[in-house]
C-alpha cells in the first residue's frame, strides 16, 4: 500500500482497523515499562525524588510541539497538495495536542513549585508554551464554529502555519532569553547531558507517549472520517425528503 492509496478514506480505514490493535498494545507495553523504570529510577542529587516528574513532563512537552509540527505538515497537505485526508489529520490531532500541552504545563508547574519556589513565572519558555495551548484551543474553536469542514480546513490550515512560528520560539527560548527553565539536556549539541539512569526511562516514556499519540491520532482520524460520512448521509437524507 502506497501513500497515494491512503488518499482514499476507505483504504485508510481498512489500514487503521489492521494496525490500531498492534499500536495500542505496543503503546501500553512501553508506557508500563517506562512507568516501572520511572518509579525505580534513583533520586537526583539536587532535585531528589521530584526528578520523577521529568519522565512524564518532558514527553508531554515534546509532543506538544511535535503534534503542532504534524498539524503544520497536514496544513500544507490541505493548502498545497489538497490531500483528502490532510484536514482530517489536522482536525483530529488538535484536541490530542491540546491535552499534551495542558499536561506539559501542569506537570511543569507541579515540578516548578518545589524546585523554583513558584508554580508559574511569566518567562519566555512558560509563556510561549501557554500561547501554544491557547492556539490549540483557538483552532478547536474554529473547527467547531464553521459547519462546512472544507471551509474550516483552509482557515485552520493558514492559522496552523502562522502558529508554527511559535515552535522554534519555544525550543530556543531557553537559549535566547534568561529563563528559570533549564536548557535542553537531551536534544543538544554534544549529545545528552543526562545520566543513563535517567535517560533510559525518559526515552522509553517518550517513545511510549509518541506511540500513544499515533494510536489516538489514527483512531481520532477514523472517527472524523465516519463523522463526515454521517454528515453526507444526513444531507442525502434531507435532499431525498425535500424532493
Amino acid at each position, binding site marked *: 500500500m502506497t501513500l497515494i492509496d491512503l488518499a482514499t478514506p476507505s483504504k485508510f480505514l481498512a489500514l487503521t482497523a489492521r494496525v490500531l490493535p498492534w499500536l495500542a498494545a505496543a503503546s501500553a507495553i512501553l508506557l508500563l515499562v517506562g512507568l516501572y523504570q520511572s518509579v525505580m529510577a534513583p533520586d537526583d542529587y539536587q532535585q531528589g525524588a521530584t526528578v*520523577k516528574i521529568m519522565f512524564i513532563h518532558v514527553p508531554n512537552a515534546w509532543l506538544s510541539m511535535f503534534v503542532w509540527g504534524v498539524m503544520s505538515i497536514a496544513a500544507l497537505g490541505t493548502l498545497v497538495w489538497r490531500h483528502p485526508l490532510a484536514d482530517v489529520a489536522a482536525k483530529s490531532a488538535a484536541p490530542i495536542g491540546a491535552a499534551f500541552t495542558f499536561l506539559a504545563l501542569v506537570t511543569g508547574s507541579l515540578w516548578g513549585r518545589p524546585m523554583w519556589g513558584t508554580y508559574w513565572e511569566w518567562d519566555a519558555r512558560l509563556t510561549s508554551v501557554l500561547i501554544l495551548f491557547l492556539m490549540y484551543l483557538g483552532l478547536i474553536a474554529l473547527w467547531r464554529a464553521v459547519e462546512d469542514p472544507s471551509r474550516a480546513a483552509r482557515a485552520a490550515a493558514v492559522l496552523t502555519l502562522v502558529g508554527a512560528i511559535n515552535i522554534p520560539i519555544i525550543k530556543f527560548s531557553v537559549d535566547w532569553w534568561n529563563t528559570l527553565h533549564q536548557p535542553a539536556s537531551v536534544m543538544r549539541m554534544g549529545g545528552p547531558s543526562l545520566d543513563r539512569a535517567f535517560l533510559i526511562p525518559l526515552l522509553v516514556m517518550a517513545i511510549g507517549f509518541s506511540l500513544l499519540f499515533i494510536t489516538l491520532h489514527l483512531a481520532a482520524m477514523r472517527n472524523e472520517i*465516519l463523522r463526515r460520512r454521517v454528515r453526507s448521509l444526513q444531507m442525502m437524507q434531507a435532499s431525498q425528503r425535500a424532493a
Partner: protein
Amino acid sequence: MSLGPYTSFIVTSYALVMAVVLMMIVWIVLDYRRQQSRLRELEASGVFRRSGRSAADIR
C-alpha cells in the same frame, strides 16, 4: 519507597497524566461508537452511500 517531602507533587503529576490519557481514550472510543451507531440508524432509515457499501463498514 519514599518520595520525600514532595510526594504530593509527584503523585499528583502522575495521577493527572493518567487521568487525562484515560479521558482521551474513553472520549475516542465513545465517539467511534456514536458515529457507528448514527451510520447504522441512517442505513436503517434507507439512506445508503452512492457506492452501495455499508458506511459503517471500515474493513
